[in-house]
C-alpha cells in the first residue's frame, strides 16, 4: 500500500476507501440479497402451490364458508355465509374482547398500581404479590387456568350458580338479563346521549370561564344531573319502558337472557388480569417519577390533598405513563390472538384457523391477518401519539 499512496495526490483516496461509494455498494448488495430471497421464495411458493393444486388469489373471499361460529355480532350461518363474512365476524370478536379488556385492565391496573404505593402495609404487599405472580406466569397458562380449571368445572345449567341481579353462571357461560325496550325506550338512550354531550360542552365552557374570570362552577354536580338524573327522569316520565327478560331453566338448558360464552369470559378475565399487572407497574413508575418537591410545593400553595393529586401529580404522572400504557394496550390486542388456544372465535381462530384449514391458502390468509393487526397497531399508536402530544410538556 505504501507504494500506491505515494503516487496518489494528497487529499484523494482510492475509490475503494470512499465512504460514499462504499455505502452505495453495501446498500446495493443488501438490496440484491433481499431481492433474491424474495424472488426465490415467491418462485418456490408458486411451484409448491401448483404441485399441491392449491388455488391462489383472493377469490376464496366470496366462497361459501360452510361452518358455524357460536359468538357473532353480525348475522352469520353455516349455510349461505362466505369466508369474507367469517373474517368480519372474527375481526369484530377480536375488537370486542380487546376494547372491553382495555377498559377493564386500565381500571384494575390503576387500582393495583396505586395500591402498591399505599402506606398500608398489607395492601401494598398484596398488590405486590398480585403483580409478581401475574407478570411471571405465561398468559397461555393463565388462560388455561381460567377456562379449564375455573369455568369448565362449573355446574351444568340445572344447578346454575345464581348471582345477584338475575345473573346465572354455569358451564355454558354467564347468563345476563336481556333488556327489552318498550315504546319510548329509545328516548332514554337519547337522553343519555344528550346528557353526555351537554356535560362535555358545559365542562369546556366552565373551564374557559374559570381561565378568564377565576370563577369555579360545580362541574361534578352538573355532570351527575345531566348523565344520571336526566335519563332517570325520562325513564319515569315515559312510564318505565325497559323490562328485563331473565334467563330461566327450560328443559336441560336456559332460555331467555343474553348468553356470554365461557370462552369469552375466560379470555376477557385472563387478558384483563394479565395486562393489569403490567399497567400497575407503569402507573407506579409514573407516580414515583413525579418528584416529591411538586407535592410539597402544591401543599405550600395551600392546595389540599385532592386538588394536589388532581391538578399537580396526576397530570405530570400521565406524561410518563401514557407511552408505555399505549404499548400495553397494543400488547393486549395482540395477546387476544391467544383466543385460538381456548376456542374463542377471534380473528386468528376463525380466519387463520378454520378458514386456512379449509382453503389451504396460507399466504393470503396469513397476510390478511397480519395486515389487520398491523393496521390496529398503527391506528392505536397514531391516536395515542396525538393524545401524548396534547399531554406533553409545553416548553416556551
Amino acid at each position, binding site marked *: 500500500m505504501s507504494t500506491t499512496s505515494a503516487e496518489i495526490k494528497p487529499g484523494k483516496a482510492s475509490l475503494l476507501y470512499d465512504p460514499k461509494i462504499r455505502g452505495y455498494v453495501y446498500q446495493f448488495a443488501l438490496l440484491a440479497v433481499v431481492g433474491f430471497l424474495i424472488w426465490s421464495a415467491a418462485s418456490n411458493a408458486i411451484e*409448491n402451490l401448483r404441485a399441491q393444486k392449491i388455488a391462489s388469489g383472493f377469490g376464496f373471499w366470496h366462497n361459501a364458508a360452510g361452518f358455524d361460529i357460536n359468538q357473532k355480532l353480525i348475522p352469520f350461518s353455516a349455510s349461505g355465509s362466505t369466508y369474507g363474512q367469517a373474517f368480519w365476524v372474527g375481526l369484530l370478536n377480536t375488537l370486542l374482547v380487546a376494547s372491553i379488556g382495555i377498559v377493564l385492565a386500565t381500571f384494575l391496573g390503576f387500582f393495583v398500581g396505586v395500591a402498591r404505593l399505599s402506606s398500608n402495609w*398489607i395492601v401494598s404487599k398484596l398488590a405486590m404479590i398480585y403483580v409478581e405472580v401475574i407478570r411471571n406466569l405465561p398468559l397461555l397458562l393463565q388462560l388455561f387456568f381460567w377456562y379449564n380449571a375455573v369455568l369448565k368445572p362449573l355446574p351444568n345449567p340445572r344447578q346454575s350458580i345464581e348471582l345477584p341481579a338475575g345473573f346465572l353462571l354455569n358451564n355454558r357461560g354467564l347468563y345476563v338479563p336481556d333488556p327489552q325496550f318498550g315504546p319510548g325506550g329509545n328516548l332514554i338512550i337519547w337522553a343519555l346521549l344528550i346528557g353526555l354531550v351537554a356535560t362535555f360542552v358545559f365542562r369546556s365552557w366552565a373551564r374557559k370561564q374559570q381561565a378568564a374570570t377565576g370563577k369555579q362552577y360545580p362541574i361534578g354536580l352538573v355532570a351527575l344531573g345531566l348523565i344520571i338524573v336526566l335519563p332517570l327522569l325520562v325513564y319515569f316520565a315515559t312510564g318505565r319502558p325497559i323490562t328485563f327478560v331473565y334467563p330461566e331453566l327450560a328443559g336441560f338448558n336456559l332460555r331467555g337472557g343474553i348468553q356470554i360464552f365461557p370462552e369469552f369470559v375466560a379470555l376477557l378475565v385472563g387478558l384483563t388480569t394479565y395486562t393489569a399487572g403490567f399497567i400497575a407497574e407503569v402507573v407506579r413508575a409514573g407516580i414515583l417519577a413525579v418528584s416529591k418537591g411538586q407535592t410539597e410545593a402544591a401543599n405550600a400553595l395551600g392546595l389540599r390533598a385532592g386538588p394536589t393529586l388532581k391538578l399537580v401529580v396526576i397530570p405530570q404522572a400521565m406524561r410518563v405513563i401514557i407511552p408505555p400504557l399505549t404499548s400495553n394496550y397494543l400488547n393486549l390486542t395482540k395477546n387476544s390472538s391467544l383466543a385460538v*388456544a381456548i376456542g374463542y372465535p377471534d380473528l386468528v381462530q376463525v380466519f*387463520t384457523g378454520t378458514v*386456512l384449514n379449509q382453503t389451504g391458502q396460507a399466504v393470503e390468509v396469513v397476510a390478511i391477518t397480519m395486515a389487520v393487526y398491523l393496521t390496529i*397497531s398503527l391506528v392505536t399508536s397514531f391516536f395515542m401519539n396525538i393524545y401524548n402530544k396534547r399531554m406533553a410538556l409545553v416548553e416556551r
Partner: protein
Amino acid sequence: MTDATTEMAPYAFVRRETLEQQPAPLSVAGPLAWVRQHLLSSPLNIALTLVCVYLVVDSVPGLVRFYFLDAIWTGTSRDACLADKVGRPVGACWAYIADRFQYFIYGSYPIPQRWRVNIVFVMFALGVVWLLWTSAPKKKLGIFFFFVLLPISAYVLLLGGPGAERFLGFCLMVTLALAALYVVLSFAPQLVRFNIGDAGLAVVQQLPVWKRFFGPKQLVLFALAIFVFLSLLASSPGLPRVDTGLWGGMTVTFLIAAVGIVFSLPLGVVLALGRRSRLPIIQLLSVIFIEFVRGVPLITVLFMANTMLPLFVPQEYSPDRLLRPLVGVALFAAAYMAEVVRGGLQAMPKGQYEGAMSLGLGYWSMMRLIILPQALRIVIPGIVNTFIGLFKDTTLVTIVGIFDFLRTIEATLVDPTWATPTTRATGYAFAAVFYFLCCWGMSRYSIAVEKRLAAGQKR
C-alpha cells in the same frame, strides 16, 4: 467549674452523669406503633386492612390445606387420589406429578437415550452461569461457548443420526485444521507479518512459543476438546437419530428459549445497527422488519412459519416441524432485541463515537471495540426482560402442535391414568411454579444488575 458548682449549691440535687438511653415510647416505636402506622392510620386504612385480612384468611388456609395438608404425595395410579378410595378429602395429587415427572422433562424422548439430553442440560447450565455470573473468568470463551459450541453440541447430541455425525466430523476437521494452523504460526509467526505488522511481529516473537496467539488459540483448543468429546460419545455409546416429533417437555421449552436468545441477540444487534445506520436503504429495511414484526402477534408469526415457510423453500428441503416455530421465535425475538439494543446505542454519549473516530477507527472497529461493549452492558436488564417475555412466549408453540412443557401437562390431563378431580389443579400449579421460578429468578437477576450499574453511575 468551681464557680458553677457553688452557684448551683441551693439546688438539692444535680445530676453528675448522663442518663442511660431510654427506649422510645411504645406509641412511636415497636410493633404496636408499626401496626398503628402501617395498618390503622385512618378510617379508610382500617377498612382496607380489614378487607385484606379477610381476603387472606379466606383464601390462604384453604390453599395450604389443598396443596399441602390434604395432598397425596405417593401413589401409582388415579386410585391413590380419589376421595372415595382414600376415605378422606383429597387435595392436590402430587403423586401424579411424581409419576409423570420424567415425561414433563423429556417428553417422549426414548428412555435409553435421555442421557444425551442431560448432557445438553449440563452444558446449557454451564453456559448460562458463565455468561450471567458477572465475575466469572474468561468471558470471551464463555460467549464463544454459548453462542457457537452449545448450539452445535445441542444439535449433534439431541438429534443424532448420520446427518449430525457428518456435521460433527466437518466441525472437527475445521477445528483440527485451525489448530494445526496455530501450531505452525506459533513456531513461525513471520508468516502473518502482513496482517499483524512489523511491530506486532516483534511483540509476538518475544513471547514463548505456547503463549503466542493465545486468545484465539484458546478458543480453538476449547472447541477441539468439545468436538473430540462429542465424537467419542458418537463412536462408543452411539448417537442414533431421535426424531424431533419425540422431543417434548422442559427440553423443548428450554430449547426454544435458548435458540431464541442465541439467534435473536446477534440478529438484534445487526438490526439495531441497521436502524441507526446512515445508509437509507439499510435503515429502511431494518425499520420495516422491526416495526412489522413488533406490530403482529407472535401467533401469526408462528402460523406463518408453520404454513408459509414450507412453501418458500423447494419441496425437498421442507423444514422440520420443530424447526419452523424455532425460526419464527428467533425472528420475532430479534425485532424486540433490536429495540432494546437500539436504546443502548442511543444512550451512548456522542463523545464515545467522536473519541473512537478521532483515534482513526473505522465503523466496524468502533462498534466492536468501543460502542457495543458499553451499549450492551447497559442494556443487560432490558435484554433479560425481553428474554423473560420470550421464555413465557415459548408456551405459544403449543398452538402449532409442538410438545413443550405446558403441552405435556395438558396431554397428561386428558390421560385417563391420572384422571381425578384434582389432577388439573395440581398440574397447573406445578406448571405455575416452574414458570414462576424461572421468570422470577431472571427478573431478580436483572434487578441486581441494574443496581450494580446504577452504583457505578452514582459515584
